[in-house]
């Protein structure tokens, strides 16, 4: 394969094979069909669990999660039993040094192997690249970059409603109307002061014009005045938050005017790092983000861009969410095209997250009887997902224009998609089995709270935390562990066997297909950090909302009534991704019987082999191009 000079990887997060198949059959994905004809198309086995950061980390490093250390969005601290984001952490060596971000994805990514061989890469928005790797070429960090509040995305809702209460991942600021309802002063909430923990704010003034359904927003930021129209996303506003006498933090925010009056309401996106002055590094080299900003203007920098919480919280409607998704796709495509136009050799990778975020929020429209569906909802959204796939296909068409006969072009997803109608309360099940005990007098439900706060660790053998992970309470590892280390495998086995085949009592269907243990799933230097058990849900099921953060609710399975009605954190066998290449590849002709099908582990070796670079020793996959 020495004729390949350039590899393009277009990641379409969460693209579901059965939908792709259906649309291919209808001839509605002409560009993907062209790729299939030139090279091939297959499913690609995802990781366990089937989660974006886990899967793309395996893509990047060619190893199972035991080799790169990302097992779930969430990890837990065995000393405190508290969860935290698993993608990165902040270290502060002394109180006087700025904290540093540490990427928790380990292993050797393909771009480092290429860089060592003198080949450059342009990596745009790959998950778990925050902080960016210091490797040859350019990198813009993806999932893992926080907003200025330090979370994945905290939005702000402004309203003059008397009963204004913050919903999920949200802050609220009351609007006090003056001047006959045409004027209001408020503020944008910036980061917290690291010492006092007080919110740093930037004042804004709204001049509302209900008759034209518009408003203007004035601030000390840039630009001083921005125009808002109902239902439309504003341009970016750049604000500085003074974090001390001597330091300030810059961020960018955009608004959606929900109503100009008489009841005024305004939505503000999470405040993103300013690409010109990011609070922590988000690109390599450092000035790459600056360069992109100068080329294309401000862009979303947070790791999870789409404001799904605004839609979940019903602060704005599906149309506004779709408009945002379109903008994100365009923004990302500009970046990709920019690199394609100037990088002649090596690897160009760009992840489009939007297919995943869009399917989470629109899946339910395709399913009659989804518990999240409301009465009198428009049918117009039932076709949104398929339309989005067609848009992705058109995007692939534009990429293919930059592909020549010395280019290997890969279009792929990291996992598929499925329904999320029912949530399983794993901690409630553990409690019912006597494996998890609550403090005296505490019953499952509201009393038990979250974060495993009311768990009696002296009588608890297992607990669930994260998106399908179960941990044993092991002596010497957990601070109040009781399971002897040498008994852990048998306890794990017992839990796995008992939970496998769990039936949803309301529906009579199997909710859990399998439960697999660490030893079955992971190998490598970081396998010890993994959960002890990973639950493989059946289609339509997922871990319940409250279990993820260590809740112990009453009942076993509940309806999912949130607009987030689709998901993929189920048995990985049920949600493989898709893989298209413009060159024939093993498994790409559908001859799956001859070889084990492609896995995410195979992509890094494939990219390396095509560019004539040997795979890194730890890589577990094989090149699909032989």
């Amino acid at each position, binding site marked *: 394969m020495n004729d390949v000079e350039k590899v393009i990887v277009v990641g379409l997060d969460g693209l579901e094979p059965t939908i792709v198949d259906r649309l291919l059959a209808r001839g509605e994905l002409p560009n993907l069909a062209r790729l299939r004809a030139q090279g091939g198309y297959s499913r690609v086995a995802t990781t366990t669990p089937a989660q974006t950061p886990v899967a793309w980390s395996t893509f990047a490093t060619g190893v199972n999660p035991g080799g790169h250390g990302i097992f779930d969005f969430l990890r837990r601290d065995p000393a405190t039993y508290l969860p935290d984001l698993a993608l990165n952490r902040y270290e502060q060596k002394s109180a006087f040094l700025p904290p540093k971000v540490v990427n928790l994805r380990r292993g050797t990514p393909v771009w480092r192997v290429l860089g060592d061989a003198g080949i450059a890469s342009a990596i745009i928005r790959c998950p778990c690249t925050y902080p960016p790797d210091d490797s040859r070429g350019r990198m813009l960090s993806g999932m893992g970059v926080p907003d200025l509040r330090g979370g994945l995305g905290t939005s702000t809702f402004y309203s003059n409603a008397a009963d204004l209460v913050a919903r999920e991942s949200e802050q609220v600021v009351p609007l006090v109307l003056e001047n006959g309802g045409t004027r209001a002063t408020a503020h944008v909430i910036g980061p917290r002061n690291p*010492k006092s923990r007080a919110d740093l704010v930037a004042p804004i003034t709204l001049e509302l014009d209900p008759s034209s359904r518009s408003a203007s927003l004035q601030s000390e930021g840039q630009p001083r005045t921005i125009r808002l129209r109902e239902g439309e996303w504003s341009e970016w506003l750049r604000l500085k938050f003074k974090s001390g*006498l001597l330091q300030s933090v810059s961020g960018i925010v955009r608004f959606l005017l929900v109503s100009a009056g008489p009841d005024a309401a305004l939505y503000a996106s999470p405040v993103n790092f300013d690409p010109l002055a990011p609070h922590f590094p988000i690109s390599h080299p450092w000035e790459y983000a600056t360069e992109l900003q100068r080329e294309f203007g401000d862009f979303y920098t947070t790791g999870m861009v789409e404001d799904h919480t605004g839609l979940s919280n019903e602060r704005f409607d599906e149309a506004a969410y779709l408009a945002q998704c379109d903008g994100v796709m365009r923004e990302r495509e500009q970046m990709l095209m920019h690199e394609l136009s100037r990088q002649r050799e090596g690897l160009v990778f760009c992840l489009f997250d939007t297919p995943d*975020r869009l399917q989470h929020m629109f899946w339910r429209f395709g399913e009659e009887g989804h518990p999240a569906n409301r009465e009198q909802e428009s049918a117009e959204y039932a076709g949104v997902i398929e339309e989005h796939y067609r848009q992705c296909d058109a995007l692939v068409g534009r990429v293919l224009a930059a592909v020549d006969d010395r280019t290997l072009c890969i279009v792929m997803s990291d996992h598929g998609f499925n329904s999320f109608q029912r949530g399983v309360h794993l901690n409630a099940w553990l409690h019912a089995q006597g494996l998890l005990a609550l403090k005296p007098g505490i019953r499952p439900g509201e009393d038990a709270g979250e974060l495993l706060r009311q768990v009696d660790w002296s009588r608890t053998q297992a607990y669930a935390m994260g998106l399908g992970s179960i941990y044993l309470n092991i002596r010497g590892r957990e601070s109040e562990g009781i399971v002897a280390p040498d008994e852990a495998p048998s306890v794990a086995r017992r839990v796995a066997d008992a939970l496998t085949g769990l039936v949803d009592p309301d529906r009579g269907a199997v909710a859990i297909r399998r439960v697999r243990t660490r030893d079955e799933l992971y190998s490598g230097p970081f396998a010890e950090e993994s959960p002890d058990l990973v639950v493989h849900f059946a289609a339509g099921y997922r871990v319940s909302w409250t279990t993820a953060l260590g809740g112990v609710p009453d009942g076993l399975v509940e309806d999912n009534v949130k607009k987030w009605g689709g998901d993929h954190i189920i048995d990985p066998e049920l949600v493989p991704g898709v893989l298209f290449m413009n060159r024939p590849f093993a498994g790409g002709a559908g001859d799956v019987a001859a070889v084990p099908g492609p896995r995410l582990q195979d992509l890094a070796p494939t990219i390396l082999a095509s560019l004539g670079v040997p795979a890194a020793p730890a890589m577990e996959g094989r090149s699909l191009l032989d």
Partner: protein
Amino acid sequence: MRLLVIGLDCAAPALLFGDERLVNIRRLMDAGVYGRLESVIPPITIPAWRCMVTSRDPGSLGVYGFRNRGDHSYSKLEIANSRSFKALTMWDHLALEGRKSVIIGVPPSFPPPRVNGISVGCFMTPSVDDVYTNPPEVADEIRDLVGEYLVDVKGFRTNDKDWLREQIFEMSRKQFTVVRHYVEHAEWDYFHFVNIALDRVHHGFWKYMDPSHPDHEPDSPWRDVISDFYLHLDEEIGKLLELVDSETAVLVVSDHGAQALHGGFCVNEWLVKEGLLVLEEYPDTVTPFGKLKVDWTRTTVWSEGGYYARVFLNVEGREPTGAIPAASYESFRDEIARKLAAITGPAGEPLGTLVFKPQEIYREVRNVAPDLIAHFGALDWRSIGGVGYQGVLHVRENDTGPDDCNHAQFGAFILAAPNVPALGEMQGARLLDIAPTLCEVGGYEIPDSFQGRSLFDGSLRDASTGGDLSAEGEEIIRQRLSGLGYIS
């Protein structure tokens, strides 16, 4: 709590606090307290650093500058060294409690002071071939670390600016390498080093940076040498802070500031002109004071040069051939002080000279003090001791080589520690307050011999008293996970 003192000789508050690119400095400022630090009189490296670590003024230490009269004769001038000071330092007091110290280049540190720990000589070390460390084998370790260690740039008053820049940076880098090594590997409760390179870079490059300097050269290739050096310091300090744990107090401090040097005032030339200093013969060429033929029977006043003037009166019964009756000493001294204060600039403008009597500014006056101390033009002008300027009193050239800046009365300090609240800028801090402040921050008793007072005046609480950590921890977690979507 361990105490780390990062001494930046001559650091100027405006430069240290005014550049937001100095991210590590900013971080420290934001984490604790900072401000201008009023130095002693005179604001000179010797004795200022020793005043700081003993919390005693120059008079109480009996050391008034580099050169001090050894007795009341006309010729015995002694160069101060580490043995000229008897008062107990911070590290001496800590050693009494069994605490260990590392002292690197804290003037005067030659001969290398005996400490309970390690000491390394300062810029006064004649050569690193001399024994300049204590214990002596530390010198071998240093050689292994950096090759030839530089205690100073010999001949820093030079016009070869490229060479000078290189030497200064090399000296500083080597010192930081050594400092990092001992911060990491030595046992210490008190660590104090002084970077003399900053003083040298100010003296050598100020005029290129400062448009108000009379000899400013705009757009000089050396325009940014000083700001580059501050960036270098900031980077090195950042690396150093990586090595200390959060139970360490960090003090960045200077012994004095820096300001543009407008020229030299020929003090002895002026005294000759005034008839106060009488020469047997006026020299044909500019001649240092020590080589002049002075008529000591008729001379009433003479002075030493330097960044400031030490003015001496020739008093009957005190000096060998005193010409001022002892009874009229005070009135004579007042008269001279008035004359000095009235000295004008080259165009006859008021110079704003400050004149001090040791008895008024020091708690004690030990050894042989000057009778008067003069800061010409509040140190805009230095003091030229030589005579032979043919009546010219104001000169631009310096008699000891090119020099762009003088010392300023106000240095700077930044103090950050786990038990120090982030109070921001603090007014009114004085150099003698540093050691008692360090004692309070470090949890040590403030010795009776200290003349300053702690900036916190006993108000620091135990660092371990915090809020409800678990509640805060949970909130931080929620914040971190906010917007993830998969959870609620």
